[in-house]
């Protein structure tokens, strides 16, 4: 067709009213007409794109995004298509420059006027950390008191998505009130730090589960008494007393099962008397229990005990009844009685649950311990738990002093503590001023002081105690916009705002005194000062908060337990908490390793080491790694592991527990790791429903779809990495064949739940594929090699993710030159992860709103 000038076309469309007054001639018109209109006009409209009517209207975000797409397709050489005449390099570059310049300028104008980022509130991770640091109470658990945060560009750091409703406000208020009351002194004199030993036999659960009842006649689900490696049949038969006072320290209670309903071990006689720091010491050891009667050797004979044959991992949780569990730590116990210590924080009222994590979890009916051998099965024996605490370095605590300074305290009503003030109005104002100074990341105005003083005074007037009135005022401060919102003004950030941005980036919390002081001296923005502060923050243990929070969103690590391996297909993983916990920690420690050792970004795709413990090493088929602690392990040459892509945590969050999909995993890798997000799936195309009977493979099912021309273009880009990852099952286990349910010869074995396997070997996995640029790979090893060829892209993606996380704004078209600058500055170090962080902080993107 004869192409009308764009201006006329515009007038003829209904959109014309929308764009009235907009300059209709577009940059690069000649190029578009010559190179693009053949396919992208109003008649052919290939890919649903009609370039003849697409206005160059950059104030409209959707319109802008279309032009970015046009730009990027041409840069990538994808357009014009290979089969069409290709433009000369100069012609192409001129066109790209012609449209890129106004686009960059438009983004920069917007950034200057409003800032790249929108003002935002703290997310719930940040709110929790801020209260912990402000109130000197690292044990506070606040995050779960607040609703889940909105997410944009994959992160919980973006103003547009961090909404506030009355529900949010009411939860903030409850959380603030809770936190303040938690740090206030619970009694007048310092609670004594006691060391008390809690013997397993004195615990209701340990002792109660020894006896059989109508609900349990199964030895797998019972505890049993032993001393050293001697069984105590008389005690078990209730013919002898449960405990002999002269042997208290040697007496133990054993289990052959991991904690799960109905046998959930708990040191129930202990309840933390107050929140704070505790040292918990456990004495336990591994043992071996004899086999059951002939023909039923897999049942334990609890009256036959011998020495343990290997160490056993123990996981320790705290529990707020009913059933609110927190993971505190884990350790190994040996065949000889072993004492291990966990130095931790407990909440008031928590008790302690130990779990012999490697042992099986019996699920009805007719369970069969998978660890049982014909001569018996492993067991763990618990002797005692010793608690030292609560441990205080001062009384009242630093948090209490922040709230009430050194006003005297005395016993009050209902067992509470009363703060005594001889001059409440004067004390209130003095305390409030000090608190505001500390809580706000900048000095409080007189207006603010009066505002919150108003709350305190009206509380005092209506009969509140002094402490209650102060807490009401402080609650107000902790819910106020100046506290929960990060205030940034368009343009270059002042030092105070920069300090906050830096601290919320690398600590996920408020700036500390040192950082504030540098800001107050107006020195923080100086490159060398900023660099030193960045390095200091990274070196501080608090930077672990950054690593965990960043990975929770970048890689969806927070969803690690969202789906469970299917009980039928993956009974060997089903109910395996140790594997889930180890997998999450692996990824966190792996990123730590990259960050703190400034290792090149390409390690994301492939590394010659992994962070493993025995459970993970078994899972990955890597020999000679013992024990529950994770550590850096060099990988054998040509190992499929190494890098993020083949970590169990990542392979788990990209699967659904039952099946894997190359499309889902492929899209995930494209977006999260390679920074080339595929377009969203077209509407009304149902997801492929994988066949768990083993008749067809997902690849065969997909092939039909991929052969359709309309689908092929996108899937050629999305699927390749997913195909390579088909060698890994729903939890990242290596597979050469799929597993299938239904007819077939079952694989022999028993699951962690004690149920016989009901799956059989399915079709062979084909992990080969072709990248969109035509390069072939045969499996994950060769794919990794191909991806490494463009390590700058891997680094670019990481830099972009860090910028979104650190600045609370997406990386827009106009930000690209700065991203390239960051890459240039770090290329000599192979784009070291720490170098990238340091360069980002020094960049304009970080230092401007």
């Amino acid at each position, binding site marked *: 067709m004869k192409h009308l000038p764009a201006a006329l076309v515009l007038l003829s469309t209904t959109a014309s009213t929308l764009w009235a007054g907009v300059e209709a001639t577009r940059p690069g018109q000649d190029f578009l007409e010559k190179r693009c209109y053949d396919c992208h006009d109003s008649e052919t409209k290939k890919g649903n794109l009609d370039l003849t009517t697409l206005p160059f209207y950059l104030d409209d975000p959707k319109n802008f995004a279309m032009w970015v797409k046009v730009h990027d397709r041409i840069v990538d050489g994808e357009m014009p298509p290979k089969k069409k005449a290709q433009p000369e390099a100069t012609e192409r570059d001129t066109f790209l420059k012609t449209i890129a310049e106004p686009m960059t300028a438009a983004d920069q104008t917007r950034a200057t006027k409003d800032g790249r980022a929108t003002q935002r509130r703290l997310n719930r991770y940040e709110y929790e950390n801020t209260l912990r640091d402000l109130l000197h109470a690292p044990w506070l658990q606040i995050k779960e*008191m607040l609703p889940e945060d909105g997410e944009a560009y994959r992160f919980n750091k973006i103003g547009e998505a961090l909404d506030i409703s*009355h529900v949010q406000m009411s939860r903030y*208020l409850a959380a603030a009130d809770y936190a303040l009351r938690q740090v206030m002194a619970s009694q007048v004199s310092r609670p004594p730090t006691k060391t008390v030993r809690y013997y397993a036999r004195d615990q209701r659960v340990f002792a109660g589960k020894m006896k059989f009842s*109508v609900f349990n006649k199964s030895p797998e689900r019972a505890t049993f008494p032993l001393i050293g490696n001697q069984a105590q049949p008389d005690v078990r038969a209730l013919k002898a007393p449960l405990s002999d006072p002269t042997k208290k320290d040697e007496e133990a209670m054993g289990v052959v099962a991991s904690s799960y309903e109905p046998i959930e071990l708990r040191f129930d006689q202990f309840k933390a008397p107050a929140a704070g720091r505790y040292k918990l010491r456990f004495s336990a050891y591994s043992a071996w229990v004899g086999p059951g009667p002939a023909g039923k050797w897999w049942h334990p004979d609890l009256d036959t005990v011998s020495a343990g044959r290997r160490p056993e991992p123990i996981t320790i949780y705290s529990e707020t009844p009913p059933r609110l569990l*927190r993971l505190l730590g884990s350790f190994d116990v040996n065949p000889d009685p072993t004492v291990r210590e966990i130095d931790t924080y407990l909440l008031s009222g928590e008790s302690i649950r130990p779990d012999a*994590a490697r042992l099986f979890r019996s699920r009805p009916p007719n369970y069969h311990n998978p660890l049982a051998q014909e001569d018996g099965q492993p067991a763990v024996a618990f002797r005692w738990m010793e608690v030292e605490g609560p441990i205080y370095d001062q009384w009242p605590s630093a948090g209490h002093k922040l709230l009430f300074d050194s006003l005297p305290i005395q016993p009050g009503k209902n067992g509470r503590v009363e703060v005594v003030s001889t001059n409440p109005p004067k004390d209130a104002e003095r305390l409030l001023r000090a608190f505001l100074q500390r809580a706000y990341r900048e000095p409080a105005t007189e207006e603010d002081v009066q*505002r919150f003083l108003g709350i305190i005074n009206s509380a005092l007037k209506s009969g509140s105690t002094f402490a209650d009135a102060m807490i009401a005022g402080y609650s107000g401060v902790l819910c106020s*916009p100046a506290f929960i919102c990060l205030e940034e003004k368009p343009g270059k950030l002042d030092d105070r705002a920069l300090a906050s941005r830096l601290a919320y980036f690398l600590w996920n919390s408020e700036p500390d005194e040192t950082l504030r002081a540098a800001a107050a001296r107006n020195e923080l923005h100086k490159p060398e000062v900023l660099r030193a502060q960045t390095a200091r923050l990274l070196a501080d243990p608090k930077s672990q908060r950054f690593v965990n929070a960043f990975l929770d969103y970048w890689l969806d690590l927070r969803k690690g337990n969202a789906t469970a391996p299917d009980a039928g297909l993956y009974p060997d993983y089903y109910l395996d908490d140790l594997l889930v916990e180890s997998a999450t920690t692996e990824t966190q420690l792996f990123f730590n390793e990259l960050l703190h050792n400034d290792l090149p970004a390409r390690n994301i795709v492939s590394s010659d080491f992994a962070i493993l413990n025995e459970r993970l090493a078994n899972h990955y088929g890597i020999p000679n790694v013992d024990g529950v602690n994770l550590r850096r392990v060099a990988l054998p040459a040509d190992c499929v592991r190494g890098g993020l892509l083949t970590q169990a945590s990542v392979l788990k969050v990209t699967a659904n527990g039952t099946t894997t999909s190359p499309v889902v995993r492929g899209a995930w890798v494209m977006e999260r790791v390679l920074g080339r997000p595929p377009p969203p799936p077209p509407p009304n195309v149902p997801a492929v429903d994988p066949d768990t009977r083993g008749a067809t493979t997902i690849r065969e099912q997909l092939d039909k779809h991929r052969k359709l021309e309309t689908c092929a273009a996108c899937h050629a880009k999305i699927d390749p990495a997913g195909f390579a990852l088909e060698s890994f099952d729903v939890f990242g286990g290596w597979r050469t064949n799929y597993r299938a349910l239904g007819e077939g010869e079952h694989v022999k074995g028993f699951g962690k739940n004690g149920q016989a396997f009901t799956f059989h070997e399915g079709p062979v996995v084909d992990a080969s594929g072709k990248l969109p640029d035509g390069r072939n790979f045969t499996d994950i090893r060769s794919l990794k090699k191909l991806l490494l060829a463009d390590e700058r892209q891997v680094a670019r993606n990481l830099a972009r993710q860090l910028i979104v996380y650190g600045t609370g704004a997406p990386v827009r078209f106009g930000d690209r030159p700065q991203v390239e600058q960051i890459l240039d500055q770090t290329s000599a170090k192979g784009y070291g992860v720490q170098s990238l962080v340091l360069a980002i902080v020094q960049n304009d993107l970080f230092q401007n709103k």
Partner: protein
Amino acid sequence: MNPSSFISTKRVCSRRQFLRSTGVALALPFLDAMIPAFARDAKVLPPRRVLAVCNNLGLVPEKFFPEKAGRDYTLSPYLEELRDNREEFTVFSGVSHPDVDGGHPADNCFLTAAPHPGSGGFRNTISLDQFAAERIGHLTRFPSLTLGVNVQQGLRSLSWTGTGALIPCEEKPSEVFKRLFLNGTPQQVAEQERKLALGQSIMDAVAGQAKSLQRDVGARDKERLDQYFTGVRDLEKRMAMAREWERKPKPIVKATMPKDPEGPREYMEKVRLMYDMARLAFENDSTRLITLMLDSVNSPAIEVEGQNTTDGYHNLSHHGKSPTKLAQLEMIDREHMKLLSSLFTELKTAHEGTDRLLDRTMILYGSNLGNANTHVTTNLPVLFAGGGFKHGQHLLFDRERNYPLPNLFVTMLQRLGIEASQFATSTGTMKGLEAV
């Protein structure tokens, strides 16, 4: 002092509010002032309510689930007990909460659908009733009621806060009655009011600061601060409303205070009385959200129709196909169905304006166990009645790969007038369930 906690746990209402919605004008100045402020939360004016019941030992599946799907299904042996109300409920097969495993502890998740209650590091999430109470709870004196039968003190209930904390249930019918209909002492009322007033003054102060920050910021930042400001004002209004409830006398009813059954053996009588309390609360619009945990696991031998069972209820559930145990279990299960049928009938008879109270009340009855004999948490027995839906059907889903039950929760929330598109692991709204 924790003002927000009073927004979410205490309060009753008169019938005036629904009278208004049905066109009966009453002089009620404070509500006049309040309704517009909440119009966006409660666009649907006819009040809707929820009673959610979980029997944590479930029902013998062979006798409960019908076979044929659709509207012309044949009632199963248990559903025969509900024959008079066949058109008032939908029965589901092949539904469950995704990834909620763990046997008995799964009852903690009946209304939360939080995955893996048996595993380490478990933390529960908000329950359906509390999610709704945060949004419509201010419309009645009590945002919600959490009830239980034979519940071990403090250990179980169906209601969980957004922090994953258990809301303990009320186990005595007489205490429920007192809360609903007997007024507090003037001192108690004054103390409540004082706390709420303090909460309001906190909200006033932070709103003032938000206003002052709104000056000289760009459009996008201002929109964020506006949203903060609105959140604060909405909460403050809810506190004001809660104060009004404190001042208003509780409704006067003809019913007399029930006598509490003496022991756990009188399980069925307790269930009947709790159903009564729920009906009274709904008739008086004291609350719109009630949960009831029937802790059968914790129940000893019980009395059914004047006879005692030979074994404890929990023990009977592990029947191992013993005919004598199964016979007793069937007697218990049928009694459950009969009580439910009486409740449906009573709610059919009661009216609110021109509507039957049953059409304004959604009743969810089910269990966290699909089969107590084997502790499976799939193929849950679930009945859903009332609420103005097209019932009289059997919705049969895949028994191998279950349909997500949280989808029903989304449908229920929307029926309450709450704009929700997701709850826990939902994937949409309940397929096959349509409003009349």
